[in-house]
């Protein structure tokens, strides 16, 4: 029983990490039908900037978080201007896929060349020793990740629901052109969603760093798994990613323990295929009707 709960907690923590990253895909997909395919590398950048400021230069924690937010804003702006906007304007609707992938590769290589190719330890400000409750060990950072992930999703979803600007975002995601006719600056809404998404990615990088370690490749696998989480939860649904994250995180932990460690990732991706087959817009997703 003790082991079961230990696994459960590990699975939930891992799942929340995925959800946090996956949420970045959702935010921009709902407004622009496009997202940053190298979201994982933005997370990596956040982790690296956090490490340089907080660990290497002993900058206070809050100042470091502000720096990471600032980097997130700048990178989001550059990404939008170079990879998203030209693609949305042009006739080819899918150029953003390759453009954002390329952006991520460049980012990763820059970090490798000018910073380091090694993996570094990021000491959690909450301490590295696990808290032990009735024999079950939980890292303080894991608890923090679970809380922050849920808070961010709830905050953004409430923002969309209860504020005027949030409602504008929903309007753009419902119907871009009608929203424009109603006086909503849809380009600004899309830009805003990209800024928000990249800031969240960078913050997530700092948040998961004590668990994953910081290195140029820290975001690659996370980005892919988070993508699966997004699809399972529904690309349009904020709360869906929390569920999707739990599904993948728990399925990994329990498969590794009770079936085989070699098949750890298989059930998650099996679920992904099943969802794509039977619920193409995700478990929580809205059905999209395209009028021709």
């Amino acid at each position: 029983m003790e082991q079961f709960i230990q696994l459960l907690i590990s699975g939930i923590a891992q799942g929340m990490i995925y959800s946090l990253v996956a949420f970045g895909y959702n935010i921009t997909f709902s407004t622009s039908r496009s997202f940053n395919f190298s979201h994982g590398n933005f997370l990596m950048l956040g982790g690296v900037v956090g490490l340089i400021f907080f660990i290497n230069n002993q900058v206070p924690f809050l100042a470091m978080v502000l720096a990471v937010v600032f980097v997130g804003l700048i990178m989001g702006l550059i990404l939008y201007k170079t990879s998203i906007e030209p693609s949305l304007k042009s006739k080819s609707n899918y150029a953003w896929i390759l453009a954002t992938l390329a952006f991520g590769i460049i980012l990763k290589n820059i970090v490798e060349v000018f910073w380091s190719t090694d993996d570094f330890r990021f000491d959690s400000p909450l301490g590295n020793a696990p808290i032990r409750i009735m024999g079950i060990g939980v890292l303080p950072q894991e608890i923090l990740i679970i809380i922050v992930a849920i808070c961010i999703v709830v905050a953004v979803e409430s923002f969309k629901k209860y504020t005027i600007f949030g409602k504008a975002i929903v309007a753009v995601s419902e119907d871009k052109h009608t929203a424009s006719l109603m006086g909503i600056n849809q380009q600004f809404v899309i830009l805003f969603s990209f800024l928000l998404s990249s800031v969240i990615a960078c913050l997530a990088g700092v948040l998961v760093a004590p668990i994953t370690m910081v290195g140029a490749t820290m975001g690659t696998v996370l980005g892919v798994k988070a993508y699966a989480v997004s699809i399972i939860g529904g690309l349009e649904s904020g709360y869906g990613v929390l569920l999707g994250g739990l599904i993948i995180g728990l399925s990994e932990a329990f498969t590794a323990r009770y079936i085989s460690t070699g098949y750890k990732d298989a059930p998650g991706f099996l679920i992904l295929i099943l969802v794509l087959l039977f619920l193409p817009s995700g478990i929580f997703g809205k059905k999209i009707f395209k009028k021709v």
Partner: protein
Amino acid sequence: MLKLSNNFYLIALFKMKKRIFMMLMGVALITTVSSFSTIGGDPIKIGVYGPFSGGSAPMGLSMRNGVRLATAEINAAGGVLGRKIELVERDDEAKNERGGQIMQELLFKEDVSGILGPVNTGVADASTKYSNDRKVPQIINVSAGAKVNDLFATNPDNYIFRIAANDYVQSEMIIREALQKRKFKKPALLCDDTNYGQGGRAKLESALAKRGIKAVSVGKFKLKDTDMTAQLQEAKNAGADVLLVYGIGPELAAVANNLEKIAWKVQIIGGWTLSMSNFINNAGKNGNGATMPQTFIENGVTSSKGSKFLAAYEATYKEKNIPVAVAAAQGYDSMYLMKMAIEQAGTTEGPKIKAALENFKKGYTGVTGTYKKPFSATDHEAIHEVNIIMGVVKDGIVVPPNK
């Protein structure tokens, strides 16, 4: 069509302003002169490849630094056969297919006389075929799992050599340390899913089988996995009293850290990669006691050659603790072995260098040990058990066992 374009060319030449024409002539003259001046001292090209970016990069970069250091020393001392050594370096990104591409480029385009590297087992196995076909000697200086002596079966004329503790030797030493020396009875295996990890697992299992023992559990993890709870629970429930691991730094650190999380105190013994800086740093105090076979221990250097190497390394690369000291030392020694073989052969022809490698006239005292005859016609492994000691992680560094 051809005639027309020729005419165009001539007309263009006539029309060319005199001044520009003179300038071009000048440039042409300078390049001819400078190329003339290098003839007679054509450098000997040696290919070096390994992962210089990505997760395995610390191993690749340390190895390359070791090779560069040796090359700089050799060139400063007048080179080989009166010629300088020129390194042709390529990044294989730890990708198997890149290994094959790089080998073709090195062998057919750059026309190198010898090859050093690589680091990753999969990359090595995907590329050694090319050096054998082209008859250019290759000294593998980091990869422990790559096929070397195994190649004799398919290639009696084998051009692949190695100066690194191979997995047969390593797994034998790991098992001996665990069962004979420390008297553990129930080993659990935990290996990553790469060619390196799974090759290591197979060799550990057969070394156990020789002693009539079966691992109580065999777990697997992927690169970049950070949560090992399930794997460790499985081993613990199976009643394991020692954990034998085969993987690389970051994931091994995750194993050590997860042990702390589930509050299981168990000895870790594994491949040489437990000495990588990214294991030691990331595992912190949880890594203490991890034991691994080593050909070179930075903090246990006793030979003058070793301390000279460390001083030169620190002066050149400004690194106090070499990220992967074993790779740097083996890289350094591999360059010297290649240089001495070329010297002995008196030529850069592949078959003659290979013959020299197999029959060393002068012994070589290197950083990783003293080699009277590093290789023979039937054994292309320079490192044997006598060259290896078991290192132990202690408070952030690797130390010899008795320290």
